[in-house]
């Protein structure tokens, strides 16, 4: 039950993921090079914060800087960005196309967890989406049926999924 510790010890923190993504996005038009001021604007934080956070990214070998203090992703930094972006797309697609979550909420939720799920889970999720879209009419129909599905929970608060505690009710009661 130490998963929460793994969450905190995650090598790629939420902040680091966002910095790498911002460097990638800002640098797209400039051969990969990004100015600290532009990164700060993209992340809505100060330049001082960006410069301090960049130190950690440099130590990990994910970014490099030049004499003009421009910042660029290294090959490994770029690979991290690609992986995070892939997970984001997979998650967003799963939330919207399979679960029927509104796109705006799906974007927020996928952003929160894109860098936290393991590569293997991301890969399985991508395969699952491919499975649904594989051309098998039964799979597509199943997904479509699910989006229209609204469970009526038994008053006892039990079912095959919840097994003693109604999980749907818990979500509805969430503060």
């Amino acid at each position, binding site marked *: 039950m130490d998963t929460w510790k793994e969450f905190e010890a995650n090598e790629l923190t939420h902040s680091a993921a966002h910095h790498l993504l911002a460097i990638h996005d800002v640098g797209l038009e400039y051969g990969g090079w990004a100015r600290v001021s532009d990164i700060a604007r993209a992340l809505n934080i100060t330049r*001082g914060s960006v410069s301090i956070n960049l130190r950690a990214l440099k130590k990990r070998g994910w970014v490099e800087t030049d004499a003009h203090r421009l910042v660029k992703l290294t090959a490994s930094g770029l690979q991290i960005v690609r992986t995070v972006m892939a997970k984001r797309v997979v998650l967003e697609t799963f939330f919207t196309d399979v679960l029927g979550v509104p796109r705006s909420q799906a974007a927020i939720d996928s952003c929160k967890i894109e860098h936290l799920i393991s590569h293997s889970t991301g890969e399985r999720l991508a395969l699952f989406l491919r499975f649904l879209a594989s051309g098998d009419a039964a799979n597509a129909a199943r997904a479509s049926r699910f989006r229209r599905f609204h469970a009526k929970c038994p008053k006892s608060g039990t079912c095959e999924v919840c097994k003693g505690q109604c999980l749907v009710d818990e979500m509805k009661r969430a503060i």
Partner: protein
Amino acid sequence: MARHPVPADLIDDLNRLMAEEAEACLRYFQMRFRVRGPGAAAAGRFFEEAIKETLEHADALARQIHALGHIPALRINLTLDGASMRSGEALAEALDVEQQALDAYQEFLPRVAGDPTLEKFIREQIATETEHVEEIKHVVRTAHSLKLVTPRTAGSPKTRRP
């Protein structure tokens, strides 16, 4: 003489500069408790001086914004923690922060061309920040003791920063 109205995006940039200074102040406030090992006491004094000076700079920017008819808007998003660190490492972080402040003022300067009051103010800030950055670079380069960096006496013409 009444000053010309200033564009909103220029006020935004002044607020950003103020946020840089205020955040640096808070960063130094916390950083002084992280420094361990040789030079820790001197580093503590060094950062205490830096706290005062960054706050003075933030205040000066706030007054400029207010003089232009706006309420200063301070937007910072900051959590400061982290393990203990050596004085050299702390100085290197301070150098990064100061260099960014200097870059920010330099990039801002062309935007205030035509406003003599603001231009004079920004030029003074650039001069001060340049001095600070050079001082820290010198300390980092030569690995001198932090004891060499002493606060200026009251009434000196310029404030000092690390």
